[in-house]
């Protein structure tokens, strides 16, 4: 791999009220320039917390520890304010709910101009025309009109486009997208994903794409980190992870999806749910839900280890598990 654009090293996010409780517990993430990398997992696994700590935007009740190296320069994650200069300029973020990320009482064009004022040396005129240019770039049909609109006057898809325009305004090297299409309709979701794909390609921007939807990840990203209960449990190329998932959690997730897509009679499930920060099981955190768990799993905490065919997984029984062949490799299917 070329020198990474982003390297997150041993990120720990703990609760200020009780530092023994950790929402994220020692994860490493790397993103190469121009690469689209996914962070997947059920809700509550720590995906958003990871993204927010990267930008120094953690909720006041949480404290981060670790370092982030961006484009060769290392920054301490403990001090969120020190990360502020990076926001917008080197790293931009888009959110799940575009409405809450916009100021409700200001036309979106003015909000875009404000961002430009902070991060560029453009003059008034220059800013105005750059705003229209950006809106056009994200596929907004009448940039003039939309620039003068308030967020509530725009549809969800339009608002997400405005947020993307805002994120692009300073040509960031990395775009962090936290479930950017979860709140959108299927057909609008397809539009936004298309737009993001083009942008990553044309602007040579890297992307950290957070999602619980493996389907989107499969279509869109090159590498993936699978998170469970604040840890990375498997990582590798999307192709390998979806076709031959090694970790039992990834297998379970992939099975869920595969059975849904196949019109199966019953869906594969992952029994139970993600443990909260205050109820982390000892040993392997997935053990209470893992069909392959043995006694050792309840006492020994598995660490990420390299896999023979590339990538890494954190499971004590990696070599002993039955051969994984997810349903996603694409045998012909009756309905198509």
């Amino acid at each position, binding site marked *: 791999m070329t020198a990474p654009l982003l390297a997150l090293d041993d990120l720990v996010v703990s609760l200020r009220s009780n530092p023994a409780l950790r929402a994220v517990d020692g994860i490493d993430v790397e993103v190469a320039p121009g690469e689209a990398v996914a962070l997947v997992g059920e809700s509550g696994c720590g995906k958003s917390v990871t993204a927010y700590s990267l930008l120094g935007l953690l909720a006041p009740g949480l404290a981060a520890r670790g370092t982030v190296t961006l484009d060769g320069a290392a920054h301490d994650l403990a001090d969120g304010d020190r990360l502020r200069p990076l926001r917008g300029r080197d790293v931009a973020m888009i959110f799940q709910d575009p409405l809450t990320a916009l100021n409700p009482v200001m036309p979106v064009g003015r909000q875009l101009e404000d961002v430009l004022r902070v991060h560029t040396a453009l003059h008034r005129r220059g800013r105005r025309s750059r705003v229209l240019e950006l809106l056009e770039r994200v596929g907004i049909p009448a940039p003039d009109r939309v620039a003068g609109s308030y967020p509530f006057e725009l549809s969800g898809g339009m608002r997400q486009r405005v947020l993307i325009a805002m994120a692009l305004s300073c040509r960031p090297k990395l775009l962090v997208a936290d479930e950017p299409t979860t709140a959108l309709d299927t057909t609008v979701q397809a539009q936004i994903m298309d737009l993001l794909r083009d942008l990553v390609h044309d602007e040579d921007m890297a992307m950290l794409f957070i999602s619980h939807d493996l389907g989107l990840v499969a279509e869109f990203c090159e590498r993936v980190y699978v998170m469970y209960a604040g840890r990375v449990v498997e990582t590798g190329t999307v192709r390998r992870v979806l076709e031959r998932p090694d970790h039992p959690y990834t297998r379970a997730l992939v099975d*869920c999806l595969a059975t849904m897509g196949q019109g199966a009679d019953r869906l*594969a499930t992952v029994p139970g749910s993600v443990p909260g920060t205050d109820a982390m099981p000892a040993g392997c955190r997935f053990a209470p839900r893992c069909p392959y768990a043995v006694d050792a799993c309840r006492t020994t905490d598995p660490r990420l280890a390299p896999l023979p065919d590339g990538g890494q997984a954190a499971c004590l029984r990696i070599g002993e598990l039955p051969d994984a062949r997810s349903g996603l490799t*694409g045998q012909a299917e009756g309905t198509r």
Partner: protein
Amino acid sequence: MRETAGASAVAGSAGSAGPAEPVLAAAGLTRTFRLRGGQGEVQALRGVDLTVDAGASVGLVGESGSGKSTLARIVAGLIRPTAGSLRLLGREVADASERRRRALSRDVQMIFQDPRASLNPRLPIHRTIAEPLRTHGLPARRAEVARLLDRVGLPARVAELYPHQLSGGQCQRVGIARAIAAGPRLIVADEPVSALDVSVQAQILNLLKDLRDELGTAFLFISHDLGVVRFFCERVAVLYLGQVMESGATERVFATPRHPYAQALESAAPAVRLAERRSRIVLQGDPPRPEDPPSGCPFHTRCPVRIGPVCDEVEPAAYPVGDGFARCHLLTPEEGR
């Protein structure tokens, strides 16, 4: 005693619906909302025809604002239609009085999208589950509540807890227990798994399927996720701007959609299977606002295969396709255009 009274009332309702009578039959169902401050109106539903046979599951898909919840709320008796006919278990309820409508509540139940919001935060779970039993004069002892909890896969001690102490998936199981408690013939499920994680979705969908097969309850099942509808429903109706654009057997509609909107919707769904990646139809523009619907075919502003002025001017009729229909001029015999 009340219990026997309740039981005979059900027997009566079952008797009035003949064996061939669908549990739900809507014809020309229309609902108009007046906008705040008298600024015009929205047609949330425009002449919807829909049938759900006893024990069948019919899916309803469509984008936000297409009228899915409006239809669900009408069927569940929360709001009234403005026009059209709605027969539930063989009885016309479109203009039924509140009391007559309430008499049907034992047979028509609903599962909501937001599992936690649909449970009263101040009531312990056992009281929420017992409510339909008490309301319909059925025995509501703790053992009965425990049996219902067990049936939806929850431990009995959940009965003592409050909604905020449960996960979203657990809350939805409670919502399901409440919905099946009084033995309904039709359950309206408005996006019952949309707020849940994929893995929990799968748990809940399996549970619903088991219960359906076991109890023979019919479902009107709303979702914007085609995969979910495909798993759960034999038939599906595709809603756009308050109209059914296409309906038919689920497999047929997803394998060979005939309406261009149904085609776009089907192709937009992310495909996980790596071999299935394909070029997809990405629609241009946003769905039109329902308060300002386009003339002619409601889909013409985004339709990638629009055939000409006829689409802008003439509202297409429903053409039979398989055992369902589709509303598109493309299906008109050539000379009829």
